[in-house]
């Protein structure tokens, strides 16, 4: 595919890096240094120019499959996508937005955008899912089904000595991260302390049985403290408040404090921490919070705040993070990582590009695991066919069929039926192989 990326920032760079191994990528940025650096690092074409200037597009190829606008400014993203569409024959446009107004559906239609990505909203959404499973590190909901993939830390499990197959009937352990390595366990694998387990099952089943994996985490969240009162913090506070959770936001900048308190009104308490926040900890009783979220723009600061929170006795600490490289470090420190705006935009855009109508793709465990789901729509030509070629991928992947709220592991004799959802778990490095398998089937 031919992909044009407008903006060579963190998101643009990471997208170009990932996409360039299989697609023709062109990156446009007005900063000549950024453009040169990208050209030398990656096998892509960079064009130095203003994304809002039609002249930039004159010498480019006349067609592209995707145009991805990820510059800093929403306005520039909209305008550049319109100009690029005018100059080049573009099939699909993806735009990253900061302002929640732009993410509205009608605007997307009017601008003829294939997908708009609003990372702050996505992050808040992740948080909402997380609140359904307060003990979980990470929650992903599968489309078209009532199933979920939930990750939880194994601590003080009594029954871990038995192989995982016999552990829980309705729950599948789809992956384990142990000492920084991610793998899909065989049925005789034994759970060890501090394993990060990826549990797959129906939401109700999961909610009942996942609780016994981790005895340290709170069973429910009643109050929460958020560090950082930017867009992200406010968006999160809104989600929490909607669930009747008491929220306190701590923010250094008075300006942000005022705008946050104006947005949130009475649903959350905004605290100004100009003179440090140590005294606030005592005064406001923050150490009695069930949960703490560090949502500033600074990755390192978030991690440090979480460690402080953990030390002062908050069981569940969450750091918003824009750097995949910190992921395993945070796991080892017992901090829950939530994707920040940039990394969320990156993953979301990747999912949009790789997912077609029938196959969606999710990436988990810091980019080590992948989950593909394929919906068998009523007009699919797969209906009634057996999954015969399954043995080809058996070594690399686990395939499950979700049919009328039951999950079964697929074997060669399984037959596709109407409205089935096929879920395929694998390590991310085997993803390409699985995709060819899917397209062959």
């Amino acid at each position, binding site marked *: 595919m*031919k992909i044009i990326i407008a903006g060579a920032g963190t998101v643009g760079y990471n997208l170009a890096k990932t996409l*360039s*191994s*299989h697609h*023709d*990528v*062109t990156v446009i940025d007005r900063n000549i240094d950024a453009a*040169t650096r990208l*050209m*030398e690092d*990656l*096998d*892509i*074409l960079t064009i130095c120019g203003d994304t809002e200037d039609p002249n930039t597009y004159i010498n480019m190829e006349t067609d592209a499959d995707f145009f991805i606008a990820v510059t800093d400014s929403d306005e520039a993203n909209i305008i550049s996508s319109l100009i690029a569409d005018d100059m080049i024959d573009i099939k699909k446009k993806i735009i990253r937005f900061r302002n929640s107004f732009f993410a509205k559906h009608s605007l997307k239609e009017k601008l003829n955008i294939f997908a708009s990505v609003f990372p702050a909203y996505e992050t808040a959404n992740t948080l909402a899912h997380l609140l359904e499973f307060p003990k979980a590190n990470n929650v992903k909901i599968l489309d078209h089904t009532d199933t979920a993939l939930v990750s939880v830390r194994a601590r003080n499990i009594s029954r871990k000595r038995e192989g995982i197959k016999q552990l829980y009937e309705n729950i599948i352990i789809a992956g384990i991260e142990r000492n920084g390595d991610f793998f899909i366990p065989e049925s005789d694998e034994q759970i060890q302390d501090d394993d990060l387990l990826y549990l797959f099952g129906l939401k109700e089943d999961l909610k009942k049985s996942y609780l016994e994996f981790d005895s340290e985490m709170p069973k429910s969240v009643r109050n929460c403290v958020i560090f950082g009162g930017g867009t992200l913090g406010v968006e999160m506070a809104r989600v929490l408040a909607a669930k009747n959770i008491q929220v306190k936001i701590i923010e250094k900048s008075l300006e942000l404090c005022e705008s946050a308190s104006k947005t949130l009104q009475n649903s959350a308490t905004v605290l100004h921490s100009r003179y440090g926040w140590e005294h606030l900890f005592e005064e406001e009783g923050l150490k009695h919070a069930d949960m703490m979220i560090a949502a500033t723009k600074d990755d390192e600061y978030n991690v440090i705040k979480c460690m402080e929170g953990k030390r002062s006795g908050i069981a569940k600490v969450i750091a918003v993070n824009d750097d995949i490289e910190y992921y395993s470090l945070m796991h080892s420190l017992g901090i829950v990582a939530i994707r920040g705006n940039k990394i969320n935009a990156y993953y979301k855009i990747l999912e949009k590009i790789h997912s077609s109508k029938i196959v969606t793709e999710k990436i988990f465990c810091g980019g080590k695991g992948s989950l593909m789901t394929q919906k068998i729509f009523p007009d699919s030509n797969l209906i009634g066919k057996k999954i015969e070629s399954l043995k080809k991928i058996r070594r690399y992947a686990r395939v499950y069929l979700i049919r009328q709220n039951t999950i079964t592991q697929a074997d060669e004799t399984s037959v596709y039926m109407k409205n089935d959802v096929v879920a395929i778990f694998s390590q991310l490095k085997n993803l390409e192989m699985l995709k060819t398998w899917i397209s062959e089937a």
Partner: protein
Amino acid sequence: MDIRGIIKLIATIGIALSLFFILPILVGAIYSENILPFIFFDTLFFLVNLAPLLILRKHRFNLKVKESIVVVNLIWILLGIGGAIPFVIYHACDFPSAVFEAISGFTTTGATVFSDIESLPKMLLFLRSLMHWLGGMGIIVLGVGLFSLINPTGSLSLFKAESTGISIEKLTPKIKDTAVSLWRIYLIFTLCDAVLLYLLGMDWFDAINHAFSTISTGGFSTKNSSLGFFQSDAIVWVTTFFMMISGINFLAHLRSMNRDFSGYKSEEIRWYLFIFLLLSALLTMVHAFSSGDSLYFSATHSFFTIASVLTTTGYATLDYEQWGQIAVIIVFLSMLVGGNVGSTAGGVKVIRYVLLFKNIAAEIKRILHPNAIVAVFVNGNRIKSAVIGSAFGFFALYILTSVTVMLYLYARGLDEMSAISTALATVGNIGPGFALTGPSHNYGFFEWYDKLVLSSAMIIGRLECYTVFVLFVRDFWKKF
């Protein structure tokens, strides 16, 4: 360091090379020569390279900068040995001479150890031209095309280690596509040249060999008296033309295929043509005055000589040393210049001189106007001081390398002119020098160790110094 990856990559190059070796075997078969030993060697070479490839077929490599540099250096050694063995098995010469010949071929230097070329079997003659042709566009650029099939992400660092441009320039998102397009143009030029030479009276064998050697700016000929053998002005002019366009940045040619001729208007190409015309005109006059030949005859051979030396090809029609010492100096100047960046030519390259002189002018301006904001502009773009610094650094390294080789040769007993010119001719990948290594002589008289020193000089020149010298830095081999 990913040693298995390095071995796999080199073995793959070896496989590709052994497949290309089928061509000279076919030539041998056409001229009913004794091809059995060659076939035996090629099969063996193929198997030796196939073995590690099979063992490591599951190894996924992702070459980093260090590995790529090691690979590039090792490839030249592999090429030197692989290309040398056919000469040895046909008893054409001893092993060091054969290595010299092979490296001279692959680096497109065109210096030969043979005094009677015509007595060699036709398949060996073809092998020499083929080595030029493969080396010309850079075996690695060929590799980029091949290896991106196996390894979609790691090919870029190889390109960086081998490609000699001041900055990498791409016209397509994937470097593979650029590489493939470059090869297509290379092929088209070669075909055009071969057909024209055939039409002008060469037989197909000579036409193809000379086309290979011209477009790669190599310089091996199939005749003892080089192009002088054919006694045809048309052949000389056609070859002059093709040498000159091979000395131009191939990306400009690539652009022109898309009807974008702006590439030819770059300052480097303008200066390149200006230098060519100026030196050729001067040499024509000197030639005409000193020898009494007609102006047309002088021009034909003078333009040819300057094109040949400027693009580091190294063909000869007449012995330019006969035209007096001014002629020698003019040829010597063109030896120092070289072709364009991104072409098949070697040498210092025109753009570096453009940068050096513009920077000198800027320095002078700074002295005159201490408060002025002075910058160096090329093609309308401001050149960063880091780029100028690296151009100066390269220039210094190039001169130092040449001087070292020169001192070595002088110590080995050569006269001054031979030592200086041989050093420049090998480091600059030109081929013939003056006096003992002049156009009417060859490199056969050197001892075996001299040949190995000169072979390394050719590789250093071809890889533009840095890629080789970085191996001798201690930090390169440290893990941390």
